[in-house]
């Protein structure tokens, strides 16, 4: 049944319809959250259905699309769109995009729940959130460069608004910085896409078709295009030294915005690298390996060191994202199956973990009125559940085994050692620093005596709409921490296909 309907298009369309419905509510704006929940939940449920079909019944799900299946894509849809430029509407899902796709629908739904008490312009808020979901979902399923770029850019606008309207005190600065900085990066990617299109000269923007040609590009051309793409995707990732938009955007964004920003938008960068840049430009990627590796290690270390200095809980989490996404790039830079799979998994893991962290920062902000560690202290006594959840989040993020990040980090380290030997110790320093800043923050904010600088008398523990999403995420963190192969086994074959150009890794 499912193979007869364009399920992916449907899932992308659902939040869009939801967004329109939400924006058109008129005066009944209190209904906006229900609309948003309904549509995001519907998208989530359908994406679970897709996952089920993908895993259980791979052949029938791609029936009739022999071509699509050979490249590992399922639910393949292809329609002509702009014939004169060879732009097609192509969507498909493989093992790399599937986890991120489901992560997207999940996090969007949970973010809607988390924002349950939003009373400021709810129509727009939930509408924009759904538009954001459309963009992100589109990026993860698009198999045509033009489409990919369009969805990529669609993401910017709702995010700009989410930061700019519902953000913190410096929202103006943060919103415009986010918008323009990431837009510049997108444009670099756009130039790279153009170059690939014309150099391939086969009159189509289809990713697979171009990849079939681009692997034969001259070395210099591959290098140039890859460099542009690395910049384009790297800013989103974000990689040092193009990361400074991130702390500002994260700190000022509303909680749900931060969750989606860190949980999903950053993943777009990592996804783009492995979906587009690396498989299509093998020689360029090989030439850029030192650059990628150095940047990755720098991001990991630098991000971690910066975290130590932060007094704002959310800013610390933001910088930690830089550090953790560095592992993605580091995994990729090995250009081996092990490292790349680990990098993809790290994206998935980071998406789950960082969502928890940002949600908990939101809870702290919400309940205490501040996120400054120096003002907090001893919260565990008043908010035991919140403290427990935040501690689990921190522990997951610092790579505690049994939780989801560990498998990714371990495999990245393994891949790095396999490739470069003892350089492994450089990124490994960050593991200790990571533990240091998380635990130190935990000590100062949650433990110890109360500082008396905030009103602790009326302090409440988490509300249901805050606790439920976090709890769901933590369950998943534990589940995929104990059974990472649930995801690894999907990523592996897809990455193997993606790395075919490297001669079997």
């Amino acid at each position, binding site marked *: 049944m499912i193979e007869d309907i364009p399920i992916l298009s449907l899932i992308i369309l659902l939040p869009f319809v939801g967004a329109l419905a939400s924006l058109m509510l008129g005066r009944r704006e209190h209904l906006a959250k229900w609309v948003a929940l309904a549509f995001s939940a519907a998208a989530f449920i359908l994406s679970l259905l897709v996952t089920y079909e993908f895993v259980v019944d791979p052949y029938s799900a791609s029936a009739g699309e022999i071509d699509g299946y050979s490249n590992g894509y399922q639910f393949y849809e292809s329609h002509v769109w702009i014939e004169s430029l060879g732009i097609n509407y192509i969507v498909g899902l493989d093992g790399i995009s599937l986890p991120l796709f489901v992560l997207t629908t999940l996090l969007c739904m949970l973010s809607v729940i988390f924002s349950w008490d939003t009373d400021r312009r709810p129509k727009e808020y939930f509408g924009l959130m759904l538009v954001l979901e459309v963009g992100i979902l589109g990026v993860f399923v698009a198999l045509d460069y033009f489409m990919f770029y369009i969805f990529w850019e669609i993401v910017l606008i709702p995010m700009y608004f989410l930061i700019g309207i519902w953000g913190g005190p410096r929202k103006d600065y943060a919103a415009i*910085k986010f918008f*323009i*900085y990431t837009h510049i990066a997108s444009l670099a990617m756009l130039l790279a896409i153009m170059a690939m299109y014309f150099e391939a000269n086969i009159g189509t923007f289809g990713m697979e078709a171009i990849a079939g040609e681009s692997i034969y590009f001259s070395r210099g051309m591959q290098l140039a295009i890859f460099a542009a793409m690395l910049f384009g995707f790297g800013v989103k990732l974000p990689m040092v*030294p193009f*990361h*400074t*938009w991130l702390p500002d955007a994260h700190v000022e964004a509303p909680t749900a915005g931060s969750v989606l920003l860190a949980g999903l938008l950053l993943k777009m960068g990592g996804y783009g690298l492995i979906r587009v840049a690396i498989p299509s430009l093998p020689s360029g990627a090989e030439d850029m390996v030192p650059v990628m590796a150095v940047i990755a290690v720098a991001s990991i270390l*630098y991000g971690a*060191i*910066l*975290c*130590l*200095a*932060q007094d704002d809980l959310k800013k610390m989490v933001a910088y930690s994202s830089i550090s953790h996404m560095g592992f993605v790039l580091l995994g990729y830079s090995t250009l*081996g*199956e*092990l490292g790349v*799979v*680990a990098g993809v998994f790290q994206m998935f893991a980071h998406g789950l973990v960082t969502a928890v962290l940002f949600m908990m920062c939101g809870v702290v902000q919400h309940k205490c009125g501040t996120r400054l560690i120096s003002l907090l202290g*001893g919260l*565990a*006594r008043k908010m035991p559940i919140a403290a427990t959840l935040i501690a689990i989040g921190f*522990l997951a993020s610092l790579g*505690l*085994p*049994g939780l989801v990040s*560990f*498998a990714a980090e*371990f*495999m990245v*380290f*393994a891949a790095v*050692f*396999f490739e470069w030997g003892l350089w*492994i*110790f450089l990124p*490994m*320093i960050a*593991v*200790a*620093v990571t*533990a*240091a800043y998380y*635990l*130190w923050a*935990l*000590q100062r904010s*949650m*433990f*110890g*005596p109360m500082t008396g600088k905030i009103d602790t008398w009326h302090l409440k523990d988490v509300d249901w709409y805050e606790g439920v999403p976090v709890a769901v995420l933590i369950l998943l963190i534990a589940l995929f921490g104990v*059974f*990472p*192969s649930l995801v*690894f*086994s999907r990523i*592996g074959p897809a990455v193997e296909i993606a790395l075919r150009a490297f001669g079997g*890794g």
Partner: protein
Amino acid sequence: MLEYAWLIPVFPFLAFLLISLLPKRTLSWEDGAGYAIGGAAGALVLSALVIGDVLAGNTMVGDGPKFTWLVIANLEVTFGIWVDQLTAVMLLVVSVVGTLVVVYSGGYMHEEGEKRRRYYAEIMLFISVMYGLVISDNYLQMFIFWELVGLCSYLLIGFWYEKPSAASAAKRAFIVTRVGDIMFMAGIIILFKYVGSLGFDNLFGEDGIAAVPNDMMILATALIFGGAIGKSAQFPLHEWLPDAMEGPTTVSALIHAATMVKAGVYLTARSYPLLVQAPETLLFVAVIGGVTALIAATVALAASDIKRVLAYSTISQLGYMTLALGAGGYLVVYADTAGGYSAALFHLMNHAFFKALLFLCAGSVIHAVGTNDMRLMGGLGKKMRITSLTMLVGAIAISGVPPLSGFWSKDEVLAAVYNAGEFDSLFFLLWAMGIATAFMTAFYMFRMWFMTFAGKPRSDYHAHESPKLMTVPLMILAVLAVSSGFALFVGDGFGVFAGESIAGLYHGEHHESAVDILAHIFGDPLTYVSLVLAIAGIVLAYRIYCVPGFDRTVFATGTAGRFQRALQNRWYISQFYDDFAVKVVYAFSLVADAFDRVVIDGLVNGFAFLGARSGNLLRKAQSGNVQRYTTIIVVGLCLLLMFMLYIAPGGWW
């Protein structure tokens, strides 16, 4: 029976789940103590069955059921269980001490009220993952549980998180051990690369060992031992353990004396098949062990906190075990005997019992007095008869006075080190350090005992003997502390337990009867050296701390004073770490943060500012005077003409 060994951690884990997830109203049963005791006892029974099976000669080394955790590229990581004699020793320690501590907690933690629930949940989780660590059949699985016991240690040290010192100590413990963990992980990864598997069966097999180049083997084993340095609080990463005493005393007894800190020793012992391939690492292990034993013992001489004395004593004894393992490796390689290896494990077991006993006694004292400071105690012996007597048993045991357990194992350890001197004379030095440590151990233990129980009270308190729930475990442990040393005579000098697990590594047939062993020990003059020194230490402590009239102020002046201050400041090592963390790492992070904001972000903002600014300048050209506009047109025209006539044809682009 062995195939059911995986059930051992399941019992406490179920207890953990029940305690943490049951609704508040349904839970009670003294807020979870009942579930905890049930979980621990279940595991104890199963462990006993498994140990029995092992004693009967059955092992499961690589032939048990496996669960594929991860397949990636051509690599496969499987999880499974591994039960041999070494596992059995650890199972014995964890199950016995674990159960007794949980029972003891029923009394000790009684006043904590609601917090008990968290306590029992965390203790159960710890016991569960500790079992998991012990029965792991590969390094990665072991590492996972290794980190999880670290987590539980962190949580339990920080049990009274309102106390800033407790919160800080918990953090320090986790971070410092993490440094070791990183090395452990690096070591694992090195092996992973060359062998392509992390299972002990593959790594320890001939193919596995042959696959690793020699220099990488040295590095990998040294790094894995690095994990042990962190977890077992070896020099220079030992300072977290005294701080960890901020946790409840039961936690100190269970985690920071009997079980978790032994994980490092266990890991080193487990890696023996690899270590013997790298004698350089073995020497490193031995030196670290010897240095740790000596340094920790010196600090214990001057400590005034009863738990810190025990903590440093623990470090010192762990140093003994490590030293023995290092020396034992030499013996395996060059003398074809498992003597040192067995000694280390023998000491591990004995130490677990008597040190848990000592800690629990200290807990009983603290429970009664309400302070840790021995300078405020005194004269407790009459009021707390059971505690004082059981603690005396523990003190004698650790001091190495026959026939209590400590004597036998310590003697075996020192003998092994001395024997290894035959192959590398450095071991003689280490042996001397061991002997010195033995003397100091006896001294500070009795210093502690005398300061606590002898003399008159030095402050106001109304001490009373602890409840049955606490004293019964003390008595059981006292019995064990007395008797566990006799395991030496059960079979081949503890060989049934330990040596067998590395049977493939040496060829020396080494069957001794109990009489032989006794003759062997007491026929060796070195035995008497250590014995005499131990008794001298006790007598000296008695002279200084028990007999009234000794002027202790001589320690506070002159060279002795400087020495004492250095000891009281823990050789300034802790201070060095603090300074390093604050003045180097944190300061560096502040500099980096400023750099990030000023330079990197400054560049970004600078470009933005430049854009806005240059726009502002350029617009000034727009004066509103139309003749200015036409003038600019003409100037532009001329420039364009010049460009096209003279510059563009040059083709410089």
